[in-house]
């Protein structure tokens, strides 16, 4: 029976000793690691062999050195940028989720809000950034958060609204047969059904939030942020620092993404996407 086979699979996976599990992980990750190391080595040797100028493409070792020497500046900058990104993400995601509940519950709200939300999502963020700086003050971190909010609000709203409404009709009928109230249908069917949609959107939004914050910083404000470090170092032709700042931004984004992945695994272990990841 497939069910029994499936079960024994799962239990055996749990019983695997830690050492073997780590070995398996390494074997699984090996191709990516090998490719990454190879790229870095070729990059390093290639730049040296071709005698390339620093400002065209710095060597990985030079970027690593800049990461170390500039680390006090980069740490402060990364902290400030992450604050903007996470603040905007929190506000934008909350607003998107709340709107999704309203939109999926009342047709009136849907008709009133969706066209505006779609319109707002079409605004190019590069155009919005100077306007928000003007509105909220160029030194106010909220002027950068506003750009992030604008960026993450719509994908969150659309995905969660879809998760709340795209429930199997027979699942709702089943609840009706048990004389369930609308609140019970929401809690026991619609919200769990929307969770995978929420996490899909959240993964997109974490990446977007960092992009939004860095782009917004390009248009001025405090100089202790990754966006300004990138702009200023490149204007001084210190591209090793530019690359170091980009590396920090990328690592921050990857870190945020991994946190979401872990939370997702804990919250919706039952979802098909998690089962695929497991095997």
């Amino acid at each position, binding site marked *: 029976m497939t069910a029994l086979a499936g079960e024994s699979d799962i239990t055996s996976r749990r019983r695997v000793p830690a050492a073997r599990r780590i070995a398996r992980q390494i074997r699984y990750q090996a191709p990516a690691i090998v490719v990454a190391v190879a790229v870095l080595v070729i990059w390093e040797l290639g730049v040296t062999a071709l005698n390339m100028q620093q400002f065209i493409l710095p060597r990985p070792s030079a970027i690593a050195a800049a990461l170390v020497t500039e680390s006090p500046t980069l740490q402060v900058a990364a902290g400030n940028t992450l604050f903007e990104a996470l603040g905007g993400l929190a506000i934008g995601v909350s607003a998107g989720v709340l709107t999704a509940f309203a939109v999926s519950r009342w047709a009136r709200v849907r008709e009133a809000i969706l066209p505006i939300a779609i319109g707002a999502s079409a605004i190019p963020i590069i155009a919005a950034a100077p306007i928000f700086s003007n509105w909220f003050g160029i030194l106010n971190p909220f002027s950068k958060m506003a750009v992030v909010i604008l960026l993450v609000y719509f994908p969150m709203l659309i995905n969660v609204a879809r998760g709340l409404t795209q429930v199997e009709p027979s699942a709702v*009928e*089943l609840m009706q*047969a048990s004389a369930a109230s609308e609140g019970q249908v929401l809690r026991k069917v619609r919200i769990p059904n929307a969770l995978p949609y929420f996490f899909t959107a959240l993964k997109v939004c974490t990446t977007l939030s960092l992009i939004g914050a860095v782009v917004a910083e390009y248009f001025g404000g405090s100089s202790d942020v990754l966006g300004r470090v990138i702009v200023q170092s490149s204007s001084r032709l210190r591209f090793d620092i530019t690359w170091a700042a980009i590396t920090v931004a990328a690592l921050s984004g990857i870190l945020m993404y991994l946190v979401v992945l872990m939370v997702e695994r804990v919250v919706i272990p*039952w979802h*098909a996407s998690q089962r695929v990841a497991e095997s």
Partner: protein
Amino acid sequence: MAGRAPGPGDEAMSGTPENMADRDIKEVGGATTSVVTVSGVNKVFDTSGGRTNALEGIDLTINTGEFVSLIGPSGCGKSTLLRLIGDLTAPTSGTVTVNGKPARQARLDRDYGIVFQAPVLFDWRSVQANVALPLEVKGMSRRERDERVRAMLELVELRDFARHYPYQLSGGMQQRVSIARALALQPSILLMDEPFGALDEMTRERMNSEVQRIWQQTGTTVVFVTHSIPEAVFLSSRVVVMSPRPGRIVRVIDVDLPRPRTDDTRETARYFELITEVRETLRGRRAGERADGVASAERTMAEGAVG
């Protein structure tokens, strides 16, 4: 089997254990009360393509403890009739009375259990949590719930799978979970809408025996929609044969096969006769027109039949 004398085919069942047959004795005794009364029901669907008469002039009475199958080609309104009984849709005209009250009230009183063709299990709930769902909705205490869930999983023989998740089960097992869930509130009526339509033939036959056993153990009245003739004959006390456009009841056929019906039942002459009778009726031919005279005219006018 109301009032019908033992017919041909009964002798094949001479080995029947007495205790399993008591339901039939009760029915033969005639001391039955109606659970479902459908009278003068019409159902019209307004679609973009115009009006469709899904059901026309439906009268049907289902008695306590009966197993009634609705059979007919697609579009005959058998599922619609089931959904009318369960108050999942309202009739255009006519009345549906369940346990002496309007269908809506019966639904709010949780008199129904429902099983669909798809198991409709919730991925995020374990098997036991899926079965417990209607009990949670009712607001039952945790202890009561656990006890009831255990009894239900015992009934469908899935006790060892309580902590599994739906994706870890085969299709047949998933459908048994959904039957356990439908019976969790001990409803007086179990509505089943082609519950085994997605299963392979072997699993389907096994599930049929299973459903018969559960029906006999619980005493629940069952309304069962199917388009499998053997399934309808094997399970039912009565088979309601319907025809499409407009959806009507053509004839109600009593199934007088003794209980419990087993794999041997599927090989008796009477079983084949009844299958033939249902098939002929579905083809629109009166069974009485047949040369061998298997069916008698009086059965054509069985209780509840219209037109």
